[in-house]
């Protein structure tokens, strides 16, 4: 008996529980109708409708019951046996490896109940690119859609996959020009030479012995595909894209006629004459369709680049840019501005000339004069526009070369060839100056020029050519330069020792920017005085003192008579080259006639701070510890190094130091 105290509410609730748990075993699936449908699916693919057949495969529209959508289902044709299985799977896997919005998607690859391979993919509409070209009137839309095709192919090429059968029928499209590259049946991995493709065309024409090995579609396939020499690469797809672009522009194929005519014309690059294609595009198409792959665009990216230039009214690379063309395009890009300027000039000229002609004589008709002048002005404008473009281009080239020289110079500082670094740096300065003369707003050139001028200590130039910069380093450089406005040094004209030291005293070498600058300036200075017989030691040591001005207890004394240097510090990191432990450090600027170095450091002494120095004897007994920060250092003239026996890791130190020179004696005290 149920407890009479159970209320109506409780009873109704429990009834629901009974409904769930007892009576109907399917009740839980009723709660999950979609799950139930999925569970009940026996055949994944149903409702087949044939939508297309090639020589190799048949494509059906089918229902994917598990994903609940319509898909395209591809199978090998019935009459093809297992010898085709591998090619079929290759196509499926190749396509599946591409994931791009403009490339067809593979959903599923598998074996049917007869163990024959199939794959499923996006269901194509019948709307292909050739129909799009016929129906769409907008030139811009066609160019844009073609650029989308290029994007997809660039992506595939980037994955080393080439299509080899690009043609309008293999490009699905919608009315907005959204494209989908399909049919990768001839596609291949460039890195995989084990795959032997078989072509639809080949199968269709298997009786034709003449063209029995053809892989591709005549009219779109490249000459190298016709030769079947198997030397295909990305440029074969460039050719096909050229043929598609021709069709898109002219509305008819580039290579018309019967198959043999097409093949001959393809190999000779004999195109049907252009009739409505813009001249710049003609050049692009011709370059893409060159017989020799070396004469084509070398990649689809290059082709796209030129198309983008064309689309934005810039001169394309395929044409040898001439002044008239460049200026035409310049006017096209800046139509309004140009028109206003031109109009104003004409109006002003007319007024001036009208007045002057009145003053002189009335031999000439005013209007005639106006026409003549305006045409001259027009010519001038055209010339100037072209000049601006070529100026920018030249400036960029100069600046690029200059940058190269500057870096070359900085990297030469790294080795024992500091002298060789002077010339590239001076050259880079000349080039940057020229680049800036042509294009004063080239920031890159300006920044690098300031950097190079700082190294030369030519502050006069920097101040005379001040330009606004948001770059913090450049701002700081200018600030330093302004403190020595009369420094105008070059490789030939070097500052005095005290001028150099004054500059170093202004630097705060606790910041890496200024430490870098200090090092570069000292190197450049040292290198440009390489011919001088003067003792560089006092200059080097004064600079080193300036660099270490914020280090407590730093002191360096040079005893000329004793040929010795005593160095005392609490922070030895500023004795090192900023750039690398293998670069000559600051102590390497000391002249070779100085024979002894005494270092008393409460901080550890880094072995690299001694690298490339020329002392006969180095005494480190007053330094608490030594750190081997470079595997090997070079000490060609050193005969003795003294180390305190209390230094930690003595063995490592001895091992490292003894590698630097066979004759070296390490004395432990």
């Amino acid at each position, binding site marked *: 008996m149920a407890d009479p105290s159970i209320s109506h*509410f409780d009873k*109704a*609730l429990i009834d629901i529980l*009974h409904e769930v748990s007892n009576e109907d075993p399917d009740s839980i699936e009723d709660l999950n109708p979609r799950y139930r449908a999925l569970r009940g699916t026996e055949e994944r693919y149903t409702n087949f409708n044939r939508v297309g057949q090639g020589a190799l495969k048949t494509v059906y529209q089918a229902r994917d019951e598990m994903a609940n959508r319509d898909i395209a289902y591809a199978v090998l044709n019935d009459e093809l046996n297992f010898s085709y299985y591998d090619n079929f799977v290759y196509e499926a896997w190749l396509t599946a490896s591409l994931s791009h919005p403009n490339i067809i998607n593979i959903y599923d690859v598998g074996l049917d109940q007869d163990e024959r391979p199939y794959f499923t993919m996006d269901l194509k509409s019948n709307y292909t690119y050739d129909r799009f070209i016929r129906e769409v009137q907008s030139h811009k839309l066609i160019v844009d859609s073609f650029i989308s095709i290029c994007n997809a192919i660039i992506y595939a090429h980037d994955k080393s996959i080439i299509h080899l059968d690009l043609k309008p029928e293999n490009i699905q499209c919608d009315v907005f020009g959204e494209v989908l590259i399909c049919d990768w049946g001839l596609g291949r991995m460039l890195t995989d030479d084990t795959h032997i493709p078989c072509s639809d065309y080949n199968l269709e024409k298997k009786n034709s012995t003449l063209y029995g090995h053809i892989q591709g579609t005549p009219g779109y396939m490249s000459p190298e595909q016709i030769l079947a020499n198997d030397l295909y690469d990305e440029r074969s797809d460039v050719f096909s894209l050229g043929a598609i672009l021709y069709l898109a522009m002219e509305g008819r194929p580039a290579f018309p006629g019967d198959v043999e005519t097409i093949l001959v014309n393809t190999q000779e690059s004999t195109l049907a004459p252009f009739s409505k294609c813009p001249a710049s595009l003609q050049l692009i198409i011709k370059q893409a369709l060159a017989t020799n792959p070396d004469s084509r665009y070398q990649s689809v990216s290059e082709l796209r680049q030129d198309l983008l230039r064309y689309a934005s009214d810039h001169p394309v690379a395929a044409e040898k840019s001439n002044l008239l063309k460049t200026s035409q395009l310049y006017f096209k890009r800046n139509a309004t501005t140009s028109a206003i300027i031109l109009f104003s000039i004409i109006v002003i000229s007319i007024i001036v000339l009208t007045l002057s002609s009145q003053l002189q004589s009335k031999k000439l008709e005013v209007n005639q004069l106006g026409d003549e002048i305006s045409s001259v002005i027009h010519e001038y404008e055209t010339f100037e526009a072209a000049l601006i473009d070529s100026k920018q281009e030249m400036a960029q080239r100069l600046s690029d070369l200059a940058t190269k020289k500057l870096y070359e110079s900085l990297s030469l500082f790294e080795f024992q060839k500091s002298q060789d670094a002077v010339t590239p740096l001076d050259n880079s300065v000349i080039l940057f100056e020229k680049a800036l003369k042509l294009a004063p707003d080239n920031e890159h050139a300006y920044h690098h020029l300031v950097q190079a001028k700082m190294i030369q200590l030519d502050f006069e130039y920097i101040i005379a050519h001040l330009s606004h910069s948001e770059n913090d380093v450049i701002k700081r450089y200018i600030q330093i330069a302004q403190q020595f406005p009369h420094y105008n040094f070059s490789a030939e004209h070097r500052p005095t020792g005290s001028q150099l030291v004054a500059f170093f005293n202004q630097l705060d070498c606790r910041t890496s920017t200024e430490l870098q600058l200090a090092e570069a300036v000292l190197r450049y200075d040292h290198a440009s005085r390489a011919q001088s017989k003067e003792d560089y030691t006092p200059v080097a040591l004064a600079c080193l003192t300036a660099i270490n001005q914020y280090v407590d207890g730093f002191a360096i004394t040079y005893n000329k008579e004793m040929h010795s240097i005593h160095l005392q510090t609490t922070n030895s990191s500023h004795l090192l080259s900023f750039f690398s432990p293998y670069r000559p450090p600051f102590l390497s600027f000391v002249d070779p006639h100085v024979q002894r170095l005494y270092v008393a450091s409460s901080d550890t002494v880094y072995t690299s701070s001694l690298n490339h120095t020329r002392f006969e004897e180095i005494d480190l007994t007053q330094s608490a510890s030594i750190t081997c920060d470079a595997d090997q250092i070079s000490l060609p003239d050193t005969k003795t190094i003294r180390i305190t026996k209390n230094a930690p890791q003595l063995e490592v130190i001895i091992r490292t130091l003894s590698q630097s020179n066979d004759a070296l004696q390490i004395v432990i005290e």
Partner: protein
Amino acid sequence: MANFDTRYTLIGRALNLNDQDAWNELHSTYEKFIYFLLRKLSVPENDLDDLAQQALCYLVKNLEKYDQSKGKFRNWLSQIVRTSVLMYHRKNKSNSTKLAGYTISLESEDSSHSDLDVLIHAQWESYISKLALERVRNNFRGVAVEAFEMALNGEPKTAIIEKTGLSEGSVHTLRRRVKRSLMLEIKSIISDLEPS
């Protein structure tokens, strides 16, 4: 019926994977039920904690040994409760006892037909469905659950429409949705708490 993999149920995780969190949750859910039941049986407050702990301990210890082929979980559950009550009273020198008008003795072999078993059954089911209803409550906003509860109380449709201000169509839809959600929740709680 769908064979829910035990890895996805609370009891499955507790028993098969020895998942401590699952054990804790299972333990506290059973504990609540046992207290609920013992109170229904009017166990004196003095004895309540001892008895409940004993029953719970027995239940948890023997959960693994439960064998579905020998009967339903709910029968087994009531057997455990009955045994615990008796064992407790035997310690207090009594072979049978009366609680809230029910005679509890070991001798009643045909357990599934005793009044006590019917009561325990009903209480367990009620406990589960109320637990489910509380969980469902969080899934809905507004008056959906309220309308559903009114229907459970047997209130006429017109009264529900009037009290909630919903249209007849909405009442119908909401009730159906709440019921579906409740059924899923009940199913899920059963699979969590009753070993299969």
